[in-house]
């Protein structure tokens, strides 16, 4: 797992726990976010990702543990004393102020000279391409425009770390994709760390340098999108990131897993023999062949095509293996073999395509 040295750490959490009454929202997590990194906190709702972000912002204080921003312990420092700013989920724009006053708010609070605050706010509004909208009220803006105002309002303060709480959640698909690439290039341009909370795994994969996957208050895996997709640390991560088939089995030795129906499959793991595991097989890593064809490399299981879904750019086959169903995704290339409901097939994959995951 890639970790960063403490010297360049923008945010460092050590053994941080947050309890609300008796409910543990965040459970003893260790996390280091590097300076200049686009970092995603990813997980289903209630996994503790937002609480983690709010602790970095100072909107919640950790119950236990140490939280440092650029080496300074900030555990119980109020939000106004931290060099970070937040883009809130519902934007939290001040409804009684126009765009310019919203954006200049942080500078005003810091006592920046009025004219300087104005010109810097204007500059920031230009940065998010809202020039000419300065006098509008938030209620007169579209969702996407409000989102940009929230971004400008945070960035104008030149935070050392920008925190974003599901900032794209309320936007429609097309706008969201646009903002994704815009945020990414903005982050590269500014060179500050963005810490980004999302429940959308695709969004996290698209934008982030590194992703932390959380569930039930625990940190399950931290790594690059590729590491997390290719080598999920456990069953939850494999299932949550992208689509996958989980084939139950037990470890026979370091190179073999016995599936629950008795099939021996070549798969590498460092686990002790007898460990209960699952093989994670991505739908696009498997292919279908007519039964009886030579198997050159890898592994295969036999089944019957139960359903075919036509997606335009791909075909999705659901293959019934008797003891479970497997999803296989094929590119829709001309000349490729097409299978139909009821066809007897072999599902084929290469050994390095599967990963062995524990529960």
């Amino acid at each position: 797992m890639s970790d960063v040295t403490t010297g360049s750490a923008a945010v460092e959490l050590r053994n941080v726990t947050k309890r609300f009454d008796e409910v543990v929202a965040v459970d003893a997590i260790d996390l280091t976010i590097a300076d200049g990194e686009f970092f995603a906190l990813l997980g289903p709702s209630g996994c503790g990702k937002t609480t983690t972000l709010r602790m970095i912002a100072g909107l919640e204080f950790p119950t236990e543990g140490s939280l440092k921003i650029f080496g300074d312990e900030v555990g119980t420092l109020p939000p106004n004393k931290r060099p970070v700013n937040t883009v809130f989920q519902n934007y939290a724009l001040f409804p009684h102020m126009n765009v310019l006053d919203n954006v200049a708010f942080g500078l005003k609070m810091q006592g920046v000279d009025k004219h300087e605050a104005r010109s810097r706010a204007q500059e920031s509004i230009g940065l998010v391409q809202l020039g000419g909208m300065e006098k509008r009220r938030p209620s007169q803006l579209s969702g996407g425009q409000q989102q940009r105002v929230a971004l400008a309002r945070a960035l104008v303060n030149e935070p050392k770390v920008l925190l974003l709480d599901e900032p794209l959640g309320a936007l429609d698909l097309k706008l969201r994709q646009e903002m994704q690439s815009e945020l990414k290039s903005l982050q590269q341009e500014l060179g500050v760390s963005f810490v980004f909370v999302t429940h959308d795994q695709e969004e996290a994969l698209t934008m982030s340098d590194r992703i932390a996957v959380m569930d039930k208050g625990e940190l399950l895996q931290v790594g690059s999108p590729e590491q997390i997709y290719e080598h999920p640390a456990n069953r939850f991560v494999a299932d949550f990131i992208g689509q996958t088939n989980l084939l139950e089995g037990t470890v026979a030795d370091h190179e073999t897993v016995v599936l629950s129906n008795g099939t021996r499959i070549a798969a590498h793991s460092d686990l002790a023999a007898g460990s209960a595991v699952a093989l994670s097989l991505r739908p696009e890593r498997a292919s279908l062949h007519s039964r009886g064809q030579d198997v050159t490399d890898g592994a295969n299981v036999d089944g019957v095509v139960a359903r075919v879904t036509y997606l335009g750019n791909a075909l999705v086959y659901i293959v019934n293996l008797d003891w479970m169903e497997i999803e296989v995704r094929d590119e829709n290339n001309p000349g490729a073999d097409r299978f139909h409901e009821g066809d007897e097939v072999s599902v084929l994959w290469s050994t390095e395509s599967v990963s062995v995951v524990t529960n």
Partner: protein
Amino acid sequence: MTTLDHVVGEVATPEFEHANEQLKRRRGFLMALPAYAYLVVFFALPLVFVVIYSFATRNRFGGTDLAGWNLDSYQRLFTDDLVGTILARSLWLALLTTVICLVIAYPFAYYMSTRPESVRNLMLVFVMIPFWTNFLVRNYAWRVILGTDGPLSQTTEFLGLGPQKYLFTSTAIVLGMVYGFLPFMVLPLYAAIERIDHGLLEAARDLYGTGVQSFRHVLLPLSMPGVIAGSILVFVPSLGAYVTPEILGGAKTKLLGSHIVTQFLEARNWPFGAALSFVLMAVMLATTIIYFRKGGRTL
């Protein structure tokens, strides 16, 4: 119905929209008719009588001559020193009551809005409990509290400050009025503050605002409708208060309400009493309008 016949089947023409609009307006009017009727008969008409009487003349026997309208009663408002003193005192005490209510109610309303919903409702009930007892009775209870042998005086005596005189002073009146009108400040403030997204205060703190700055620049301006509504609801009845000043105040602390009653019942000068009432109403209306104008769109 027949007027609509000729447009059936056509795309909404201006004419059709007009008819529709009219129908809507008429339906609304019918709904409001009982309230209108009540207000006209029992509020607007008596008001007209008050205005008419204020231009009449008191005759030698304490009756009122409606013939020969004049402005004598209004003139007296400016020449009678007692009226000036009483008006100034009433305005001052009403203002004081409003400000004290605001200072007490605001933090409470904010606190209330941050509680879980079940607790909030319980607190709302507590705020309204005093209404379950007669206002007059509650004022007499204050008389016991503030009296020379009352618990307040006994406490000061115990502390070595000697017996203090509270009853029949302006302090007693303000204490009583703050007590009586506090719920009228709490409720609109709570309604206004409860509507404000708590995330806005977090955003203000995140943007380097201190607690005080967040209050001044975000919470206070956004809760202004509640501040204005509550202030009007306390200031207006305080200015015309009769029961509390009568029971807790003394002869030296007479307020407008009592003075008007005196004109009708003791001095038997109905025209002057009517003129006083009318001016009081005008002052209330003026303050209300000014307040609303300042607050922009409210309520």
